[in-house]
């Protein structure tokens, strides 16, 4: 079946086609399952590291939602439910690989060493991005849907020209797959055999629009028409996401070109803090996905396999709490920028018009100081 039965069969469904294969290595109950192609090649310490990051980024997300509710942020795009897709894929990256996020990849940012405070600048309105992309190999957030897939493709073409053994990875959502730029990026990267991984987090909802408004076929199958492999992975299974992303990155680095990964997941929260999902989706759907929670299943696995004890889980919770409260404190201390920041960094070189405007506006502001004296 091409789309969930509950949403009706779309036109053009091929009754003979087998159901989409979903790569899964860890069931929602925390049971390890075998897959003919993919395996878990992580040490117990690395697995515990995954768990730590999953918990911490959820805590960062919770804190940011709360800060928005209290008026400290203007808006926030929650990653709730998508932690495994982000942490699993980000852990597969090497230092010199370059990640291009959309605007919900707070988990990837965390793994790339970006201070969570730097993520808040955009949402608080003190800047448009607070981090140096080159220092973290983590590009700026991109809000114009899908535009950055072309930047990632170009960057990958640069990697090719440098003769480097790295890859670019670009994160986008199910809605973005309808954008012309994303399709152009598929065309270009295929024609150039660029070292890139297209990582689509299909969280089932593009704000209020479900997947069937975007596609008649499963998204991972789009890749075939462009001439490169596509694969669907359980996006709530951090093991499977890690294994699939690692393979795709290895392929890219070794000259085998692009891969489209469709991480099948669910946006458990609202699109952003301004959204109200109760207007367009059923509570039962959310409840069914809660049973597939990415953090709970890894916790179950750790417990069942006696890889972690209560002390470990308590320590992680305490650390996450500390990250959250530290983030809150520093967010409240973020100063508003000076008015003249409007004209800063627009051009690398001297620009007469900007200099004139800045001068005029500074004098205008100073005129109020004269009045007060």
């Amino acid at each position: 079946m091409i789309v969930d039965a509950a949403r009706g069969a779309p036109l053009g469904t091929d009754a003979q086609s087998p159901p989409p294969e979903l790569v899964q290595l860890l069931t929602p109950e925390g049971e390890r399952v075998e897959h003919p192609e993919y395996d878990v090649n992580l040490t117990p310490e690395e697995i515990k590291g995954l768990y730590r990051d999953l918990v911490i980024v959820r805590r960062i997300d919770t804190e940011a939602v709360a800060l928005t509710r209290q008026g400290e942020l203007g808006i926030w795009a929650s990653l709730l439910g998508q932690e495994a897709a982000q942490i699993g894929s980000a852990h597969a990256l090497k230092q010199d690989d370059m990640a291009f996020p959309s605007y919900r990849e707070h988990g990837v940012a965390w793994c790339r060493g970006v201070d969570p405070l730097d993520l808040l600048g955009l949402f608080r309105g003190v800047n448009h991005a607070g981090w140096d992309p080159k220092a973290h190999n983590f590009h700026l957030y991109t809000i114009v849907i899908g535009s950055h897939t072309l930047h990632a493709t170009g960057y990958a073409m640069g990697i090719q020209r440098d003769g480097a053994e790295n890859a670019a990875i670009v994160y986008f959502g199910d809605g973005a797959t309808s954008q012309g730029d994303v399709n152009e990026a598929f065309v270009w990267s295929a024609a150039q055999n660029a070292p890139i991984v297209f990582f689509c987090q299909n969280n089932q909802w593009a704000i209020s629009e479900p997947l069937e408004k975007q596609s008649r076929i499963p998204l991972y199958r789009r890749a075939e028409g462009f001439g490169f492999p596509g694969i669907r992975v359980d996006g709530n299974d951090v093991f499977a996401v890690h294994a699939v992303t690692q393979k795709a990155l290895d392929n890219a680095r070794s000259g085998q070109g692009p891969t489209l990964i469709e991480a099948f997941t669910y946006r458990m929260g609202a699109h952003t803090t301004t959204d109200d999902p109760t207007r367009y989706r059923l509570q039962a759907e959310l409840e069914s996905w809660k049973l597939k929670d990415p953090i709970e299943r890894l916790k179950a696995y750790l417990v069942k396999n006696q890889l972690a004890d209560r002390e470990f889980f308590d320590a992680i919770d305490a650390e996450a709490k500390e990250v959250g409260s530290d983030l809150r404190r520093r967010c409240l201390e973020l100063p508003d920028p000076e008015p003249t920041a409007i004209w800063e960094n627009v051009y690398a070189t001297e620009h007469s018009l900007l200099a004139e405007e800045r001068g005029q506006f500074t004098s205008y502001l100073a005129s109020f100081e004269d009045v007060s004296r």
Partner: protein
Amino acid sequence: MNEGLRKAMENDPKVLIMGEDVGKLGGVFRVTDGLQKDFGEARVIDTPLAESGIVGTAIGLALRGYRPVCEIQFDGFVFPAFNQITTQLAKMRMRSLGTLELPVVIRIPCGGGIGAVEHHSESPEAYFTHTGGLRVVACSNPADAYTMIQQAIECPDPVIFFEPKRRYWDKAPVDRDLSKAVPFDKAVVARPGEDVTVLAYGPMVKTALEAAQADEQHSIEVVDVRSLNPLDEETVLESVRRTGRCVVVHEAPVFNGYGGELAARITEKCFYNLEAPVLRVGGFSTPYPPSRLEDHYLPDLDRVLDAVDRTFAW
């Protein structure tokens, strides 16, 4: 243009050429003729037919340290790339708090006068001068083409580079010594005069010079604006203060065109020097007409002189 691009590629191995048909064919105007043969397919890239992709991937290459020079085949085809240019290329440096540099040049053959079919004769400069973060320049003659394209490629900011396509066939001496060249963000007095200043850029500079030559009654000073953003106000205002009269000429529609900005600034800053309002000569507020009508649409020598006469009738 071709020599300027070649020189830039020789000087800096990070300079790339990308566009539709720029390789074996040398571009539809042959501007990149022979470059792929000499610099290889990795540096002179025949791209898929996707303008958004040309600019979008150029941004990515710039992020990796390259200096891409994109060719948009015709002015009317830049619009599929409009989003990448205005929402991404223009803003990325500011959004990164200055940590990212975007040395991307977008070459656009522009304007009419070659009897082309629709979408091949447009003058879209005002869309880009309206967007902070971009530099917008237009060359008007072979010597400037050679120097300005090299200066644009050296510039760390994104540059929209307009090339008047009907002037591609013009011939003139070119000084290869770049060190003597006027900076590409400066206007130049193309022909000194005393009675009236005619401001023009790109294809209209030649028209303005011809008008100045033909006018036996008035001494016309022609200023080649060259850089539309930033505007070299000093050169422009100095000329108008001297002559007291000004006519602005461009091919683009007059309404909301770049000439409106020039007229407003001159009026604001030279009000007491002006003997007459700043007059504008340009295209009409219509889609570009079929080519059999373009001679009526495009400003020519007579329409420039008509406006000059009107400034003296005030």
